[in-house]
């Protein structure tokens, strides 16, 4: 009798256990499903919004614009998500271009606000998560680019910079901070020589040697002084960005090559050149990155627009 009771108890507990596990497995499955797709409703809400507006019917032009913008942005967000999944990384972007909905006539360039947003995003990326940084810019404020480059270099995991078309001047500086640069055969970097009052720093300094000093204007001498300090900073920063990727001597040479004023600031530094000076360059970009640019209407807009 007691034995049977024991058996019953044993079997009962066993069955209870199995049922509990099954139930739990089902709930966790359900919960994990729900947790995984919080982004989907957001996207659909965005797509739905312009339609609501369209019903107003009053400002059809504006609504068309909004709808197009919403669609393009949703498409880009989707691409970025897919890219993140595909590469198991956090994808950040610094893309300066004119958008169909931009207005005004200012050229977009790197500004302090860019670095603040990107520094935040880098901070929010877990240290063990690799970063893919898509960059497309003509340069801008050197100080802002310095901050981004430093933050990328301090990131603990691998940082890959992707240059689908161009990253000039201070954009190149940001590329130097990466562990790996992904480029196409056709994409270019550029020298990182500082500009002083829109003049190349090294040529401002050179004038001191070419002209008797009493005939040079006070202003030019002051510029030369600024140029000297800026060039020194640029060289030191490049060297520091490269120091753990190559020998100190080579890093110094690269810094000299890129910031020493030996080439015009518009000189394209192609994949082959970048590789030749010792940068870790990989040819070819993921299709998704190129698709990201298919959504851009080049020259379609008039101004400044930023996406992070």
């Amino acid at each position: 009798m007691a034995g049977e009771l024991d058996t019953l108890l044993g079997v009962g507990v066993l069955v209870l256990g199995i049922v509990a596990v099954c139930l739990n497995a089902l709930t966790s499955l359900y919960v994990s499903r729900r947790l995984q797709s919080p982004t989907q409703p957001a996207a659909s809400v965005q797509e739905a919004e312009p339609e609501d507006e369209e019903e107003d019917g009053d400002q059809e032009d504006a609504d068309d614009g909004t709808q197009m913008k919403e669609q393009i942005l949703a498409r880009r967000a989707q691409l970025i998500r897919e890219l993140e999944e595909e590469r198991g990384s956090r994808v950040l972007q610094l893309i300066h271009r004119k958008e169909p909905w931009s207005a005004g006539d200012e050229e977009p360039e790197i500004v302090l606000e860019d670095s603040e947003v990107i520094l935040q995003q880098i901070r929010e990326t877990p240290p063990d998560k690799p970063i893919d940084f898509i960059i497309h810019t003509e340069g801008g404020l050197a100080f802002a680019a310095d901050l981004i480059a430093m933050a990328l270099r301090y990131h603990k995991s691998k940082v890959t910079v992707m240059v689908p078309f161009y990253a000039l001047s201070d954009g190149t500086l940001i590329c130097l901070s990466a562990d790996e640069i992904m480029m196409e055969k056709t994409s270019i970097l550029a020298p990182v020589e500082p500009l002083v009052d829109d003049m190349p720093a090294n040529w401002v300094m050179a004038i001191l040697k070419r002209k008797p000093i009493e005939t040079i204007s006070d202003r030019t001498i002051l510029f030369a002084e600024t140029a000297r300090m800026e060039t020194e900073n640029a060289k030191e920063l490049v060297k520091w960005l490269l120091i753990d990727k190559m020998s100190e001597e080579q890093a110094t040479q690269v810094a000299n090559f890129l910031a020493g004023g030996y080439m015009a600031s518009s000189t394209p530094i192609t994949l082959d050149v970048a590789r030749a000076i010792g940068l870790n360059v990989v040819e070819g970009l993921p299709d998704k990155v190129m698709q990201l640019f298919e959504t851009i209407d080049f020259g379609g807009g008039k101004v400044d627009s930023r996406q992070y």
Partner: protein
Amino acid sequence: MKENQLDISELLLGFGLIAVSALNSIAVVYAVRRQKKGAAETKERAEPEEETGVEEAQPEVSSAVKRPTSKADILAWRRSIIEGLERERGTKVITMIHKKELWTEPGEEPEIGIEDTTKILMELRRTPDKPVDLILHTPGGFAVAAQMMAMAIKFHPAKVTVMVPFYAMSGGSLMSLAATEIRMEKYSVLGPVDPQVPTPEGMYPAGSLATLVKTKPIQSITDRMIILADAGNLEIENAKSFVMWLLEGKMPKEQAERVADFLAKGYMSHATPITLDVARALGLNVVEGIPDKVYELFKTFAFTGQSYKGS
């Protein structure tokens, strides 16, 4: 006997399974909680956490729905974050953040002005016995104002921690030197504090003017530049002795003098980043790490992509 053993093993197995399922449910509850917390934060910040960030920059439509747009709402949002930070750290939190706001006039670049002194001095005066966290984010600005605030920081009886989440250049660096402790991240920067002189040719470092007078024959320099260069030398002396005074009691005198020389004499460009490592090498009391709430605070500011007033 045999059967009994079987029972016990069944019993154990059963309990084992129950234990496993209990663990599982704890894990699930934890996951749900995290998600809920995440969702709440997302709501608060008005932007999805795991997002690629593309949504963040949509100014008109989606942000307008989620982000507070009126000045009062933004300030209230900011206030609640600051109060959270105060609770977390047990300090009085003061901010001097020079960023464009939604209500900033077009063309206006926020920087240190004489009005800032009123706020900072009053706030410090109000909390004589409480440690203060001063969040600094500024490109610099009016030197006298920065010096006044630096003095107030130095004279504050309780501990003053300056937090530099991104950058505090020029006058902001001067204020940082006055603090008991500077908190930075690896990527945040201070800058040199050498005086800048407004000349007819534009703003130039006093050190560069001195070089001009030294390198060019004096008869070929304009009168005005010579006068400004001489006045600039006095400014450098001022800045140097001020930095030395700020560092008094924090390091030996000779070291303070070297640091003051390095930062105030204009050897380097005014935009040279002085990182955490450099600041530490100079002998400043720098601690790495800035609370997340400080960065949360920055999300309440209009980033680019948001339309500023008039633009």
